[in-house]
């Protein structure tokens, strides 16, 4: 559990406590980074970079809530950079295997946990047509189940913009689902 005492100790430069903070924070950062990028190695790199940024700017953190928002914000900014560097595929290619995987998952055993590689394939397929902002709002709102206030604090987007991006993301994904599933 991340608490303010742990953060305070890290602010004093205690590396052992920071190791603990990395251990507790990494899964949070990894979850969002992985869902944003759909790539395990890249997500791990993002986590590493995020933790280093946190170490450098930890003295600005005053509460656990701020820390949580802050870590997500750093992850999202680094994911944006990664996504901007990626070339977007203008022509969508229907991936039959992944659609089959989705179909099996929702029909046979919806509560079964998928492996990282399977999650990556599904997310990459669904978010193929989305812009980085739409993808961010989709991941944070619909998968991570965050409120619009939280998303606004993390991404810096206004609520109307969040709603608009979310609408476009849902529409795009729903169209694909209706078409291929």
């Amino acid at each position, binding site marked *: 559990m991340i608490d303010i005492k742990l953060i305070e100790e890290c602010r004093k430069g205690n590396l052992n406590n920071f190791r603990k903070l990395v251990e507790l924070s990494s899964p949070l950062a990894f979850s969002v980074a992985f*869902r944003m990028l759909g790539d395990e190695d890249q997500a791990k790199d993002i986590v590493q970079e995020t*933790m*280093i940024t946190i170490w450098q700017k930890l003295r600005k953190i005053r509460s656990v809530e701020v820390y949580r928002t802050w870590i997500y914000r750093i992850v999202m900014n680094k994911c944006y950079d990664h996504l901007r560097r990626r070339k977007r595929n203008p022509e969508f290619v229907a991936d039959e295997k992944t659609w089959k995987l989705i179909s099996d*998952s929702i029909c046979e055993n919806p509560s079964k946990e*998928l492996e990282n590689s399977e999650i990556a394939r599904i997310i990459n397929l669904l978010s193929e047509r989305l812009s980085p902002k739409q993808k961010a709002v989709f991941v944070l709102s619909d998968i991570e189940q965050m409120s619009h206030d939280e998303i606004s604090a993390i991404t810096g987007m206004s609520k109307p913009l969040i709603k608009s991006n979310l609408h476009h993301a849902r529409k795009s*994904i729903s169209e694909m689902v209706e078409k291929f599933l």
Partner: protein
Amino acid sequence: MTMIMESEKYNKILNVLRVSKPVLDSTEDIEKEVIKRISKVKKPIFNLSEVIDSLFGWVYIGWVRRTLISASVLLVMIFIYQQGVMLKQINFLSRQIIDNREEMRFSTEQQVEKLLMEYKKPRRGFSSRSITISEKQIKELLDSVNDVKTKYKDLMDIIQNNPELKKLYDDKLIENSRTKIKL
């Protein structure tokens, strides 16, 4: 009209993705790499934000903290300005002392004596380190001393040649020596 939000398949896929949390197999590698990279980064010798944090870290309200920082900066600036003004005044005053001394003329013997007395006074007047005497002033001083010596010699000759004056002179000497003993 079928609302996109209500799409059953869409919601089912979302449920699958929500249930399936990405698993970070081991945080140890990340920990190691992060600690390694942190250790490599050298801390800057002077970090302004660190100094501000150590001074005003106890203030949690943003605007209060900013106001305190601004007030402190203002006070420091006023202090530096005052120190500057004081130093300027000290320099001005010390220059004035030297100027006054330069203005002194050795037109009379009394003035020479007065100046010599100034030099003799311990911890008063001018300290030996701060005295600045020009060559002209030294020459004037020596001339004056020679003049005094000559006049003294002439006076002594006159006294020796005149018995009345000699008597008066001897009496005065005796009187002076008595006065000194009394003291």
